[in-house]
């Protein structure tokens, strides 16, 4: 609850700084300070210090899993701010409002990580989505941004419709007419067609939000068209947050009939991995490639949904952390560049060795090479799927796709290290580089001691 209220409040604060602040740096520091505060209150919340004693009427349920994820999301956002807050301000004239919107998104994320009824899920997702439509269109003069915003909005609204229809059917199918996850989940031996339709529609609409195939089509265009700073935010923190919601929904509401929907999830995973990886191969723009890569990474994260259970949830936590860290890092570098094509990276290693080295590490992590967080992230997902004992074909398919993913990730490495090119004009501060190094260190630490993060989960349970 701390996080929900604080983020909403800080969103308002940011709105006012836009009016009151004299310089951009003030806005920047306010945002960063707010985020640190947010992180702190969330950690306090985890530790049992609830600032607000509110009867939530069972609408929300604050489990350590969700709170821990909040920490990750906030920490990631903090790093994101540290790296790119300047660039956020440069997108348009309403810098402070962008920060406000981001805080509202974080509020939405805090809701979807703690919802206990379908109503709160719906509200949370909308609170996430609406600011994102705006952020996507933030570069108002940029037609690409316009286009992305419109596409995102129309398709987002459409998927909202699907989700609502699903919720309606579920509501009809529950014996006592309830939106509470517990009531939705009550043991049912014979599932009525209504229920199944509702479940499938929810699966579809959530798949849309996490950009799983064949509901992913908005992703490349939106990620490509949106201002790069916001793409970074959307592709990482937001996506991860919705994933948590996805998992929570299916774990709390639909676990009893897992066998009924696993097949569908597996089909979606296969399609996602296939389309995401294959299509990424031919991309010429790194930004667009990263959009496709985020689709393929979603395919991997969906394994957590397929398997469910503690192990998978641990994995998802790790995955979101590792994936967000790496992607934020790459985007932060990308933002600084003028040329988003692969050739734009040519010879980067020579002129910006720190950037090149850290980017390499991020890419290795995304590709799932051992000793990076990305490896254990993938490991957990694959292991969770194998643990169920019945999705070997999918796992093998997934690793083959992972092998394909090496192709496009390593293209950047090849460009940076093995090709010569004219240096791009890039201004990077020492602080920027330090944060990048910090990020790289985090990824390596996750790759060596992944259980540190997961242990937090257990410690907090006790």
């Amino acid at each position: 609850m701390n996080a929900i209220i604080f983020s909403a409040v800080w969103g308002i604060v940011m709105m006012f700084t836009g009016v009151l602040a004299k310089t951009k740096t003030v806005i920047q520091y306010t945002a960063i300070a707010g985020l640190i505060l947010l992180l702190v209150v969330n950690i306090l919340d985890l530790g049992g210090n609830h600032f607000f004693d509110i009867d939530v009427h069972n609408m929300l349920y604050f489990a350590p899993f969700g709170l821990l994820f909040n920490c990750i999301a906030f920490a990631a956002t903090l790093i994101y701010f540290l790296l790119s807050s300047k660039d956020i301000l440069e997108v348009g004239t309403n810098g402070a409002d962008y920060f406000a919107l981001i805080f509202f998104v974080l509020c939405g994320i805090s809701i979807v990580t703690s919802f206990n009824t379908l109503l709160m899920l719906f509200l949370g997702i909308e609170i996430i989505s609406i600011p994102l439509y705006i952020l996507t269109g933030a570069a108002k003069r940029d037609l690409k941004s316009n286009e992305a915003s419109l596409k995102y909005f129309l398709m987002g609204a459409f998927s909202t419709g699907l989700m609502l229809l699903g919720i309606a059917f579920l509501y009809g199918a529950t014996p006592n007419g309830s939106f509470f996850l517990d009531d939705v989940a009550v043991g049912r031996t014979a599932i009525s067609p209504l229920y199944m339709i509702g479940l499938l529609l929810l699966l579809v609409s959530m798949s849309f939000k996490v950009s799983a195939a064949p509901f992913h089509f908005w992703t490349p265009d939106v990620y490509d068209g949106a201002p790069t700073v916001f793409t970074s935010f959307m592709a990482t923190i937001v996506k991860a947050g919705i994933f948590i919601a996805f998992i929570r929904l299916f774990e709390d509401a639909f676990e009893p009939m897992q066998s009924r929907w696993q097949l569908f999830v597996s089909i979606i995973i296969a399609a996602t991995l296939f389309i995401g990886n294959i299509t990424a191969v031919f991309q010429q723009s790194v930004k667009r490639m990263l959009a496709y890569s985020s689709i393929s990474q979603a395919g991997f994260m969906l394994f957590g949904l397929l398997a469910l259970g503690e192990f998978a949830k641990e994995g998802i936590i790790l995955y979101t952390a590792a994936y967000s860290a790496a992607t934020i890092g790459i985007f932060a570098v990308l933002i600084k560049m003028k040329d988003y094509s692969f050739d734009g990276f040519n010879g980067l290693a020579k002129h910006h060795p720190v950037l090149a080295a850290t980017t390499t590490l991020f890419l290795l992590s995304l590709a799932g090479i051992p000793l990076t967080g990305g490896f254990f992230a993938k490991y957990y997902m694959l292991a969770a799927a194998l643990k169920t004992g019945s999705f070997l074909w999918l796992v093998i398919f997934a690793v083959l796709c992972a092998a394909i993913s090496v192709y496009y990730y390593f293209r950047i490495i090849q460009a940076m290290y093995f090709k010569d090119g004219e240096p791009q004009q890039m201004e990077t501060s020492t602080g920027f580089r330090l944060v990048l190094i910090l990020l790289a260190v985090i990824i390596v630490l996750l790759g060596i001691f992944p259980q540190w993060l997961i242990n937090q989960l257990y410690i907090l349970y006790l």
Partner: protein
Amino acid sequence: MIPVLLILIPLACGFAGFFIPHPHAAKNWSLVSSMITLVISVGGLTAYNGNVYTHFQAEWLTTLGARFSVGLDGMGQILTLLTAVSFPVIFISTYRNEYKNAKNFYALMLLSQAGLMGVFVATDALLFYFFWELALIPVYFLASQWGGEKRIQATFKFFVYTFTGSLLMLVGIIFLYFQTKDHSFSMDSFYALHATIPAGSQSWLFWLFFIAFAIKMPIFPFHTWQPDTYEQSPTATTMVLSGVMVKMGLFGIIRWLAPVLPVATWAWGDTVSSLCVIGMIYASLIAMQQDDLKRLVAYSSIAHVGLMCLAIFATTKTGMQGVMIQMFNHGINIIGLWIVVNLIERQFHTRKISELGGLAQKAPVLAILLVIVALANVALPLTNAFVGEFLMFSGIYSSTATAYNVVFTVAAGVCIILSAVYTLNMIQKVFYGNTNALTQNAKDINFSEKIILSALVVIIVLIGVYPQPILDLTKNIVETIITKMNYKL
């Protein structure tokens, strides 16, 4: 503690190496580091009593069932020794090669050494996988950055190829992990699995592992990355690749595949053996056609490795003994060949056999040393490879794992003849005949190169004449593995 040191020293020195600005200092630094590793390895060898594991364990991924657990048995000893010997040899023999960004080059070399050491000492499947990849990454960078013209494509193919294989292996490892009783990645838990996994599962699990190993070795038809990569990589990297990394595949089969899935190993034995034999003849025939020295050696290596793999699947103690000693020998011999190739390339800037000639007049010492190494490559008696090949052939012939043992022996034997053909061809065209415009001003090798090649030759002859110490070293582990491999459901 020795296995830990074997990993740690190159690892630490490697990382430190990135920060040594002066190229010459970086070179010496890595040389010294590799020397220290060698000393430790030899020290470990003398302390080894032939039986128990030298074991070190530390809690690591406890919740996942993985530990940092390393140990050395006879096979580990011999392969770590090979790794430890190879690197100083490589550093010294390429001492006069100049690399751009030398510090990165040498640092990456040391990191790959750490990875290799890790592969050979890991007694935990996940750790093994870790090192398996760790050894690959630096080599990829080495080959891509300091290689030939088409290096990027060639090494990338190599990387994707091996990475695909290792991912499949990862699936296999995780699957097996869930089958273990105590949910552990430890080698003992894996070894305990052989009786519990039904033949059907073993059958496909086998391929998950085998493809990874087959790509690494490589076995026909998974070999096509190899000639290109060898050709395009800087010679020092090629030495690592062919001298040591190739052994990872063989090692993997012996340590992680055959004892764990004996039934499948038995069942697929004929298929794999056929692949090996086909590959041997195939590679030998292609080697005869090569004009590029590096490609020639690459194909000859495919043929040799095919024989080793064949001998593993023969499931005989004699054959396995042969494999053990041959893994070491092949490493030494092929590094010797690469040294010569490197010397030639550095001097004439070509590797085309057809462009060379008459070198024996100008560089007699080089010629003599090459001839000895080449003869070891064709397994002439009293060279090291003879012992290995003899034992392997003997094992293949007396194998009861297959009904086609005689066919395999004869077919593999044909490669002995073919290897003589292409090796002698190479010697003849490079060293004999008259000098031409390119080679008439050739110089003989200098002192340090002479020393290092002579050292290799001494090792070759020493093992060739008195192989017993090495055979004794691996005796126990061979017994153990063959016993496990002979398990029937």
